[in-house]
């Protein structure tokens, strides 16, 4: 059984971001594997242990995005592939999905493709469904627990209204949620193995497709409006007096 897990590289979630001349800047904060994709790798590794699968990590990004793939290898993925091409610098989610689908087909024989729920940079959460549509494979999104049963997979999904149990035939596309369990830390052995691994780079020519046309464009990147409210600390002699004063303040704001 073969699992492909798609990972992106993003600025660390602790990073302080500012818009500078229309570009995002995160100072010297590190680039990391998208936190949601760590859960996807964790989910894939759990299946690897459960059903004896191989795990291939796949990323579209610049050369530097190798580090995100190395993180997946260090966690326990078996191999990694970087799709990198100067023509892919500006991709919208449907474009990324078409490239990922082409790469998944080139890898071949995948039974499951795992995604994170969304990326924390552009954060559209669209790519998993779009890859499923391009491939024509079933989509099981927002999955927390799963079991492979023969040629099918059974999952538990979390939607706004509660939990669903769903089943689909393989090959299938899954997006993975935090409830799959905390991502494991890379082991010493894993880090050494990842350091030595060769990561092939595929270009558009290797995939045999042209750069997808872009439909979604960023017109402007802005810093959020400065937040003028410095915090007013409410003090009084007793909890009751504090509560009364606070309620007065809240009601005066007319938000209720």
């Amino acid at each position: 059984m073969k699992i492909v897990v798609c990972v992106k590289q993003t600025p660390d979630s602790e990073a302080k971001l500012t818009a500078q001349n229309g570009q995002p800047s995160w100072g010297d904060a590190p680039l990391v594997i998208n936190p949601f994709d760590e859960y996807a790798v964790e989910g894939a590794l759990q299946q690897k242990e459960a059903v004896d699968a191989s795990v291939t990590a796949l990323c579209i990004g610049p050369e530097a995005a190798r580090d995100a793939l190395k993180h997946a290898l260090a966690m326990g993925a078996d191999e990694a592939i970087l799709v990198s091409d100067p023509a892919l610098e500006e991709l919208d989610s449907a474009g990324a999905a078409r490239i990922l689908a082409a790469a998944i087909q080139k890898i071949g024989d995948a039974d499951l493709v795992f995604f994170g729920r969304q990326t924390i940079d552009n954060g559209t959460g669209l790519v998993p469904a779009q890859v499923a549509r391009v491939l024509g494979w079933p989509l099981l999104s927002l999955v927390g627990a799963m079991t492979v049963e023969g040629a099918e997979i059974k999952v538990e999904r979390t939607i706004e209204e509660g939990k669903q149990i769903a089943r689909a035939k393989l090959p299938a596309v899954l997006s993975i949620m935090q409830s799959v369990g905390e991502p494991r830390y890379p082991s010493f052995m894993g880090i050494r193995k990842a350091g030595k691994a060769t990561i092939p780079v595929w270009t558009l020519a290797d995939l045999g497709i042209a750069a997808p046309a872009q439909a979604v464009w960023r017109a402007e990147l802005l810093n959020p409006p400065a937040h003028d409210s410095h915090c007013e600390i409410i003090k009084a002699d007793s909890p009751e007096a504090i509560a009364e004063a606070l309620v007065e303040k809240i009601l005066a704001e007319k938000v209720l």
Partner: protein
Amino acid sequence: MNTWVYIDHFNGQPAPASWEALGLAKTFGAATALVFGQNVEALAKIALEYGADSVLLADDPALAVFSPEAFTSTLAALASDSPPALILFPTTSRTRELAAMLAVDLVTGVLVDVTGLELADGRVIATRPVYEGKLLEKTTCSASPQLVTLRARAFPKPTPEAGRAGEIKKVSAQAGGAAVIEGFVAGEQGVSLTDAGVVVSAGRGVSNDPAEGFKLVAELAAVLGGAVGASRAAVDAGYIPYANQIGQTGKVVSPDLYIAAGISGAIQHMSGMRSSKLIVAINKDAEAPIFQAARYGVVGDLFTLVPALTEAFKKKLGK
């Protein structure tokens, strides 16, 4: 301009943000509501009351439960017949899949979870939070139809007009649906977090007595007609289900009032509540970062302050 508005629902229960989308569409001109499901004619009528000028109703056993494939094919067929310039959706787990797949079928793009929308010559410019709400972008879609999902509570909800009539046109459904839904366990009843006007949240600060802490928080939420949220630390510790988690790996909420009790204000928590209109923090540590985001703060013990606040609200609101 005639805008299409997709009315999202779960077993006939509409997502309230669908009406917000309809209200926004009406500011651009006429609005056609899309209602898909089985036995959902009642929803079509409600859509007319909320301002839709007409409804395209696909009422069919093939659409009895939401399947992104069947719903996408149904919508794609309609949009190919008479292409609209703009389709609005409320942002929910279902519409994210539907809009995503529709963009593939129609070779267009989706502007996701937008909080502002301007229209010029039939083209939209959307504002949406990016980088976990740390930045904002203005974004456009150069293909047609332009697909836009709207963040709940970002746009005003119109007032329904009882008995308002309009054409309900029956359209055919497409089959499809690759996954089988075998079971469902409803989450906690009550006000939906993303649609709530007031959210009261607690975090690890309740650890001395988590059950009592969340009971106090729920009582305050109840007095305010709000929903209960939590930090990830509280969820990880098992004090409350994951469905209540707010933040980067949980839900994004933008209530009118957000009260955080015993939450330190980690950046990943803030990304889920930053767009709240008024933020109030209760924390025993005066240095807690949550106070930098809050308009009002109280330094002290939540176990005494939260019940005091509940009582004070009861008195003032006459409950």
